[in-house]
């Protein structure tokens, strides 16, 4: 006479209000009255902003034409960007010679792919190509020589100049930064003090003052008659500046390597440079790659500052374009274009750095 149920009751489906789309919406958008208000207000704000931006940039925008007179719609005048596209990309680099820049881009992209890709196992030859052959090749390709017409650096400009500034600075700053970081951790007081002094001095002042110093004072420091090109002066300033920041990043990596590694290397009979080069630095650089990429993003954004010392980088050439009397009143389009170009570069680099961080994170992840 037991009134105990013997078989198990079939499992009920979870309540509709907690699963699926409805559950997600309740959980994430309307979990409390405050949240509901926030959601509604934010959606309204987004709708207003997005519809305004879309109609300005796309729906009412003008894409077809040659001159400002063709911009009849109420939205953006992208004709301005289109008409000056060549100049924005290459500056005053003569048009028939622009294939040299493009060739440089392609070779650089191939080299970078070979070095960074997982599919290529041996990094020796790609490394030698990218870091030894490519820079020399680029010098002759971009500047001239060996039968190629010489293009003075005063004619370089636009995105091309921005990329040159960023890549040369990082190319010089990285090894210099490693040396400075090693010097800062050296046991020799004189070397340590010099490195600390340089790093802290450079990090305490704004890049503009370093650039001013490079453009105004460098000519004073050199013997009479020996004068650098304006671009080289800017490059010296930017490289030294980013070397100081790079040094701090590398130092962070060095500090994360346990002391035992150095002791083990020493006990195997390796000297300072061998244990650094073969044991410590490979590990330290590996863990600091994400920070190095972040520093590079900062450096890439900072290249715009050469506008102040009168080089014609992307920002500078677009700014010049907005004061062209045939294209007055199009500052918004110009700056939005520059912002978009920089955003694409920096955002993809930062995503790459996050991806790399996850990939290199071998173990220890909570």
């Amino acid at each position, binding site marked *: 006479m037991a009134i105990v149920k013997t078989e198990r009751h079939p499992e009920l489906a979870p309540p509709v209000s907690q699963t699926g789309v409805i559950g997600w919406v309740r959980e994430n958008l309307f979990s409390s009255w405050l949240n509901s208000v*926030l959601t509604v207000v*934010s959606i309204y704000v987004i709708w207003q902003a997005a519809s305004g931006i879309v109609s300005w940039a796309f729906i009412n925008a003008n894409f077809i034409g040659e001159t400002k007179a063709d911009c009849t719609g109420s939205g953006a005048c992208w004709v301005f960007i289109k008409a000056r596209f060549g100049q924005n990309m290459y500056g005053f680099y003569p048009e028939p010679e622009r294939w040299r820049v493009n060739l440089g881009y392609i070779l650089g992209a191939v080299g970078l792919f070979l070095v960074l890709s997982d599919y290529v196992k041996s990094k020796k030859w790609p490394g030698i190509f990218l870091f030894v052959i490519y820079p020399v090749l680029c010098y002759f390709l971009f500047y001239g020589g060996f039968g190629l017409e010489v293009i003075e650096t005063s004619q370089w400009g636009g995105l091309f100049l921005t990329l040159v500034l960023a890549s040369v600075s990082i190319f010089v700053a990285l090894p210099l930064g490693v040396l400075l970081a090693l010097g800062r951790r050296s046991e*020799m007081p004189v070397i340590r003090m010099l490195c600390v002094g340089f790093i802290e001095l450079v990090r305490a002042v*704004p890049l503009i003052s370093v650039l001013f110093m490079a453009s105004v004072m460098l000519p004073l420091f050199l013997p009479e008659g020996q004068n650098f090109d304006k671009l080289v002066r800017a490059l010296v300033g930017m490289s030294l500046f980013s070397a100081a920041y790079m040094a701090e990043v590398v130092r962070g990596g060095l500090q994360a390597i346990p002391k035992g590694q150095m002791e083990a290397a020493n006990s195997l009979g390796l000297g300072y440079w061998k244990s650094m080069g073969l044991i410590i630095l490979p590990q330290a650089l590996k863990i600091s790659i994400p920070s190095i990429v972040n520093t590079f*993003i900062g450096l890439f954004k900072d290249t715009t500052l050469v506008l102040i010392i009168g080089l014609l980088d992307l920002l500078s050439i677009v700014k010049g374009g907005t004061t062209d009397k045939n294209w007055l009143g199009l500052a*918004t389009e110009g700056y939005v274009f520059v912002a978009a170009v920089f955003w694409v570069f920096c955002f993809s680099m930062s995503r790459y750095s996050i991806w790399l961080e996850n990939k290199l994170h071998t173990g220890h992840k909570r």
Partner: protein
Amino acid sequence: MTADVSGQAGVSMWRDPKIRAVFFQVLVIAIFLAFVFYVGNNTIENLEKRGIASGFGFLSQPAGFGIGIVVLMDYNAQTSTHTDVLFIGILNTLIVAITGIFLATILGFVFGVLRLSHNWVVNKIAATYIEIVRNIPLLVQLLFWYFAVLSVLPRVKESLYLSENFLINNRGINFPSVIPEAGFWMIWVGLLLGIVATVVVSKWAHKRQDETGQQFPTLLVSIALIIGLPVLGALIAGIPFEFDYPKLGRFNIQGGWVLEPEFLALLLGLSIYTGAFIAEIVRSGINSVSHGQTEAAHSLGIKPSFTMRLVILPQALRVIIPPLTSQYLNLTKNSSLATAIGYPEIVAIFAGTSLNQTGQAIEIIGITMLFYLTISLLISVFMNWYNKRIALVER
């Protein structure tokens, strides 16, 4: 000891690390000194050839150029010297840096917390702001604000009126100014008393809470004191000030105070840019506090809002403060980008115009760098002190 052993083993002196260290250091010093000598020598020669007398005599010469924005000081293009230019530059840098730090901190904390919101829409708005702003160079943003937003505002004649005495046009934002009359000092005294009273009250409240566990509404009382006492002072002195309203004159706006577009663009650009970085710092700081802390607080029955304020934020601050310091330093250094939009801070007028007029590159760049070094040092000393104060007291 090691030297002895190696010596006995017949190893050459060159292999002794100690001797090698001394040798290298002497070598480095020699190279460094030779470099300094070479550079110094060249500089002196070059300066002589260009006929530039070095020294700081130029600081007392009249500057002879106009400056757009001068506050708290008198400046006259004919009589004021380069020293005045330096001080105006420093003052303008400090003004924009301090207001910028203030705004960027508020923006950063608000968006950092919003970025962690469980509300999907709010979360994505914060993420969009951070990701867009962080990845566009500051200089582009400054030029955008200045040339694309503030310059296309209506001209003075067609000013926008927010209210009758609040005008917006392409020369800035005009609003009523306060003209002090006799007895205005009472308000300052009130403010000072309010601040002193706040410090005393908060100390007393802290002590009482330690002893008895009773809480005291310190924040409300402090706000009441800091606002109330100056108001009281004003009432006692019989409202010792008058408003001067901006009026649309023939060509320009007369009276009132104005926030110039150069200042506004710089302030907006700096605080929005730095705010995005601070938001990320705040987010990672809050994320670094282990989730067990939140659970423990909830299981003790502490309300969610109090959990954030009393449990999570104090622990997160320890992680937040050091990178926050470097953001403050960055903001101050980045204020030098004002050169590009013509806000007269130290780099624009002193390292820019004064340098071009006098040609004293070494002295002027030296003074400018010294100023930034001092500021950097002051900010880091202050933040280190604050960091120590909130640091975890361990056994």
